[in-house]
């Protein structure tokens, strides 16, 4: 009873800190919102060619910069090959001219990479994308900002990967520190080698796939659940920082000499993570239903149950992670890395049923795959409640295993 009250208090405290942390709020609530809004905007052009969205990019870097590669990959080369609704991406070669065009209202706006972009990415410090727009077109503005965020966060996660890769290269003596030009080269080679497919796949595009007998589907039916799974899991894995933070803050000691038991402390982190997950679920389904006119199929209850089980499982994962990591830095990078590996593997970025059989088998080791398969069955193939019981059980099993490991580990930790 008393520990339940403590869990409640700890949860309230965590959520209070969460709402005071603007970056965390942005990443877990506003960013997904922007993401789906951009998606919505892109989709509204479907069917009418003349309403095609044009997104403009520019860079202030010299031609050796990474941003050149990014823009080259994104640029629309053959306009006639664009599918309906896909935005046309235009490379503005002259930054100053582009800026002037926006002032003269010849251009709605554009995104520009800063001069120090490559350096910032390679050295691992932050940089800012410039969004230049004419406020007279609010819709284009929202899309531009959304896209800038998308690129920025892509770079953020790439930095984590880069750092790991640099570590590996140095370890394998493939790279001698100090040669910056070669470094970019080797990293790119390694990244593309690891990713398997060219940077083309990172382009933001949403296409409808026809598979077998399935009717043309509303792409929202797999895009929204996919991103829901990814974002809930990623936010939850940030919970890993929570206990580390309490330990480094020395507040863990204060909690223990107060009246909070170790399990109550874990419970508090779990509860606050779960609440964040519920907020995300509400936002995603709210937008999905209201804006994208998603149809939840014949068993909407099953959709919500899978969402909730997925949230409970993700929170358990975050708490489990928190008992293993010792520093805040490792907590965040392991969390992001795990989420970014499991998201595409588990079918968050493209539907699993279009991937080869062997990939579908490997995917089963991720909880993401079970959640996504459940959603796909319900929203795309029109399955009923009973058809997704295996997916529900799998999610419960993942949650129980993660939770049990967390409790055992936290109990036996001396300090």
């Amino acid at each position, binding site marked *: 009873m*008393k520990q339940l009250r*403590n869990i409640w*208090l700890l949860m*309230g*405290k965590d959520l*209070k*800190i969460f709402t*005071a*942390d603007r970056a965390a709020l942005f990443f877990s609530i506003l960013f997904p919102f922007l993401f789906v809004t951009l998606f919505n905007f892109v989709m509204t052009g479907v069917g009418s060619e003349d309403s095609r969205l044009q997104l403009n990019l520019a860079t202030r870097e010299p031609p050796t910069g990474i941003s050149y590669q990014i823009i080259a990959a994104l640029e629309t080369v053959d306009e006639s090959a664009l599918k309906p609704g896909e935005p046309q991406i235009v490379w503005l070669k002259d930054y100053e001219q582009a800026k002037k065009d926006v002032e003269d209202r010849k251009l709605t706006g554009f995104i520009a990479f800063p001069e120090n972009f490559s350096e910032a990415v390679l050295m691992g410090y932050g940089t800012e994308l410039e969004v230049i727009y004419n406020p007279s077109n609010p819709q284009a503005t929202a899309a531009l900002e959304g896209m800038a965020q998308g690129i920025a966060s892509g770079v953020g996660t790439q930095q984590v990967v880069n750092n790991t890769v640099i570590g590996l290269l140095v370890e394998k003596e493939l790279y001698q520190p100090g040669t910056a030009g070669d470094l970019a080269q080797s990293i790119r080679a390694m990244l593309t080698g690891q990713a398997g497919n060219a940077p083309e796949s990172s382009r933001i595009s949403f296409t409808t796939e026809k598979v077998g007998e399935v009717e043309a589907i509303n792409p929202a039916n797999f895009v929204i659940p996919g991103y829901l799974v990814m974002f809930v899991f990623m936010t939850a894995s940030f919970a890993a920082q929570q206990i580390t933070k309490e330990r480094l*803050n*020395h*507040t863990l*000691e*204060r*909690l*223990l*000499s*107060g*009246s*909070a038991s170790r399990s109550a402390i874990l419970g508090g982190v779990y509860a606050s993570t779960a609440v964040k997950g519920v907020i995300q679920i509400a936002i995603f389904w709210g937008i999905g239903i209201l804006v994208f006119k998603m149809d939840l199929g014949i068993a909407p209850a099953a959709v919500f149950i899978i969402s909730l089980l997925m949230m409970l499982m993700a929170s358990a994962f975050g708490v489990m992670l928190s008992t293993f990591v010792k520093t805040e830095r490792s907590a965040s990078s392991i969390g992001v890395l795990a989420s970014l590996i499991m998201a595409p593997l588990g079918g968050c970025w493209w539907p699993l049923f279009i991937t080869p059989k062997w990939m579908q088998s490997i995917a089963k080791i991720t909880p993401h795959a079970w959640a996504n398969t459940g959603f796909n069955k319900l929203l795309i193939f029109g399955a009923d409640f009973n058809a997704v019981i295996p997916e529900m059980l799998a999610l419960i099993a993942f949650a129980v295993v993660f939770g049990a490991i967390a409790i055992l580990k936290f109990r036996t930790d*001396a*300090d």
Partner: protein
Amino acid sequence: MAEAFLVAKDLHKSFNDHKAVNGVSFTIGKNEIFGLLGPNGAGKTTTIRMLSTVLEPDVGEVTISGFSTRQQPDKVRSIIGVCPQELALYEELTALDNLTFFGRLVGLNSRETRAQSMANLALMELEQRAKGKVSKFSGGMKRRVNLAIALMGHPKLLFLDEPTVGIDPQSRNKIFETIQGLRTNGMTVLYTTHYMEEADRLCDRVAIMDGGKIVAIDTPRALKAKLGDPDKTTLEDVFLKLTGRSLRD
């Protein structure tokens, strides 16, 4: 000495193979201010962490007001307050939020929490900054918040692990006055510090620890008297005599 409020018997604690605390026994009387002194690494903090139920001793027993820290940790926790050596605060929250959270955690209802939070902040002369984020506070203010939190729930026994480290004489004096005031109101205090004149001025009795053991325990005056004229010797002389001049850690 008045009736024993805290009894520590033969405490041992090792980390890996290192004996941090090696057979420590002492008692603290009710309403006493007891000083725990010793060079860096002597084992003071480890001792406090065992007394305050954060660490379980490898060997030994602690009872506080008759409750065993092993068998009845919850009873013990309900009558102690801890001001850790390191600042233990949520920097992202306001001073008031910090006090409120820890107040609720020790079991106060929201009305009591509010009243005590404001009273404790006022005691530390922080009421003007109650709604300020702790991350924006100066070192001395953070120290005072750290102490104010420990007072939530009116503990009967207060553990103060170097509460005056790194702060100016004004803040330090404030903390002194507070501790003396608390004692007048019936609180028992265990106090650690590296400032010998502080211990001399504040403590009824002191224990000097070195290498995980207590090497002397008595009133400051009696300890000084063993060296010479108690009005001319200082506690620092006693400390250096007992613990030597070599550097620790």
